[in-house]
């Protein structure tokens, strides 16, 4: 059966061990995690976890049900096919030798990202966007030489009705 990427978002009680329960569930049942983001919401005691997973439809159904079964999970939603905003952020440290500096800045401009650190031999570029944008940017920067990278993984939010 075809495995597809799914973006699953959930609200959880902000208690010790909750993340371990979620991650343990994925590990113990052989579900896959491509990326994972956790942070507090504005409601006291509630955090949001966003997980990107790759699975076939019956497995995705099990993932949602099993997550719902955990006592500390308030709400689970699969945003993959929903009208949702999905973004991730990356910090990319790219080699910036004199002959490439102008080219890198042109790319930064085209992708509307920011240079947040600069040195004689490098730029650190901050970029946000959907997965496609980050992949495209990385493909353009690879030939210059990427020294280091840190990515957040996807976060997502349903759009409000217009």
């Amino acid at each position, binding site marked *: 059966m075809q495995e597809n990427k799914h973006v699953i978002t959930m609200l959880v*009680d902000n208690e*010790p*061990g909750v993340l*371990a*329960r979620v991650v*343990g*569930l994925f590990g*113990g049942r052989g579900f896959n995690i491509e990326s994972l983001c956790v942070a507090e919401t504005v409601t006291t005691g509630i955090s949001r976890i966003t997980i990107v997973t790759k699975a076939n439809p*019956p497995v995705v*159904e*099990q993932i949602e*049900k*099993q997550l*719902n*079964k955990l*006592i*500390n*999970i*308030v*709400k689970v939603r699969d945003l993959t096919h929903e009208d949702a905003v999905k973004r991730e952020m990356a910090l990319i440290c790219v080699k910036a030798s004199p002959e490439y500096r102008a080219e890198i800045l042109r790319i930064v401009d085209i992708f509307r990202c920011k240079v947040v650190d600069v040195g004689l031999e490098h730029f650190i570029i901050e970029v946000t966007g959907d997965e496609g944008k980050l992949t495209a940017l990385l493909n353009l920067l690879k030939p210059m030489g990427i020294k280091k990278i840190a990515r957040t993984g996807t976060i997502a939010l349903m759009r409000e009705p217009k």
Partner: protein
Amino acid sequence: MEMTGAQILMAVLEEQGVDTIFGFPGGAVIDIYDELVKTDIRHILVRHEQGAVHAADGYARASGRPGVCLVTSGPGATNTVTGIATAYMDSIPMVVITGQVPTHLIGNDAFQEVDITGITRPCTKHNYLVKSVDDLARVLREAFYIAMSGRPGPVLVDIPKDVANAHTRWNDNPQIRIKSYQPNYKPNMKQLKKVVGLIKKAKRPLLFGGGGLILSNAAEAFTEFARQTRTPVTTSLMGLGAFPGSDPLWLGMIGMHGTYRANMSAGNCDLLIAIGVRFDDRVTGKIDTFAGKAKIVHIDIDPTSIRKNVQVAVPVVGGCRESLEKLNALIAEEQIDNFDERHQEWLQQIDEWKAQFRMAYDQGETVIKPQFVIDKLFELTKGQAIVTTEVGQNQMWAAQFYHFDGPRQFITSGGLGTMGFGLPAAIGAKAACPDRQVVDIAGDGSIQMNIQEMATAVQSCLPVKIVILNNGYLGMVRQWQELFYDRRYACTLMDHQPDFVKLADAYGALGLRATRPDEVEKVLQEGLASDRTVIMDFVVEKEESVYPMVPAGANITEMLLV
């Protein structure tokens, strides 16, 4: 009113109606024990913490009330893990209280420290580490509520020593509300009407019940449903007792060691109504062909059970009892009176299967057949005993040859298959039902896994009866080796065993032995009549196997019959 953590624990236990707990003291729970002895709660001192959890489990299965155990930190806590996993797999309501090192030492590798909430996270329904005495009452009440509601299960509460000693104001309001946990018992009526629609069309329906029926006290509604619709019934191992074993609609257990007619019925039915089951691999055999000719209805309280292993035509999320009661009402409303006529051909076919292969064995004059012992036990207890089992051949023969007429009568580790379960579980069942005859059907291998609990039974005056089917082998594994590994009996021979009669005597119990078929009845009579804990050692046929048998992964209708 100001109270210590230990006093709060006692107050909540009493508020929750706990009358018995199973445990083993230690440094981290010494303050809790000091309070415990001031209450009316009965404490049963086990000889190993695993025994405490299995006993609490047996207590819960026999009574329907949550089992409670109390153990110390570190090794006390880790020793509970097998018992907790056993209860988790079979959805048994239980609250396990573990001591923990004082909060300021947590994470320091202190003496007898272990991260028990971390260890038990995947095998509890939920667990808590209580860091403040202010949370203790709420946590304990939540623990009982979570253990008992929805799909039940074990909940662990880890209480650091300083929390047990700290003072706080006692809150006597037992109300709790867990925002993120609200089990749904009410089935969707639209779905139930679809089920009735399928029932009306079916020519070859089969009812398949499981442990969920027992847990939700649905046996009566289930029996009414089967009789009202004239539908033949099978159950999983966990469901035995949910339908009377003496009813003509009863087919026997389904699965790897199920009856011929139950497995054939599953393979040939056109409608399978599955209630409170989870389609375990020991039931379905090859999953792709299981009930291949049938539309499947699956009713269960736990949404994760539905469509986990099999695709179903009509899923119903709801309590087993609530759903069955609604279904019974719907069917009564419809006033269908031709079920007999419509199922006649099907019931005839099932009778033919029954005639083709009956559960049978050949009891000769010299060697005792294990099945014969259970047959006689059934006869002499008039089918009324609470039977616990160990795991392996003893368990399967008990399931096949003791015919259970009521729920909470058969107590066995189904999901996890825990050897050493039967004796402590029998002790727990006896504590819950002191007036019932409680018999542990054991093998000579598995009885030794928790044999130390003999001392518990004797000290606590819980006279359980242990029937050992002694074949000198780890019989179920030996059977697999015989059938699938060219009789290479790798490490399954136990040619040195203790003398179980002397062992019983050493524990202050009664030991009896039968080596010939004509001694079986006498030993059983004497053992059952005794008011002491008794080990009855039956020296049985060494290489007897359990049949029918569906080889692992084979189609359920492809059984080895002899």
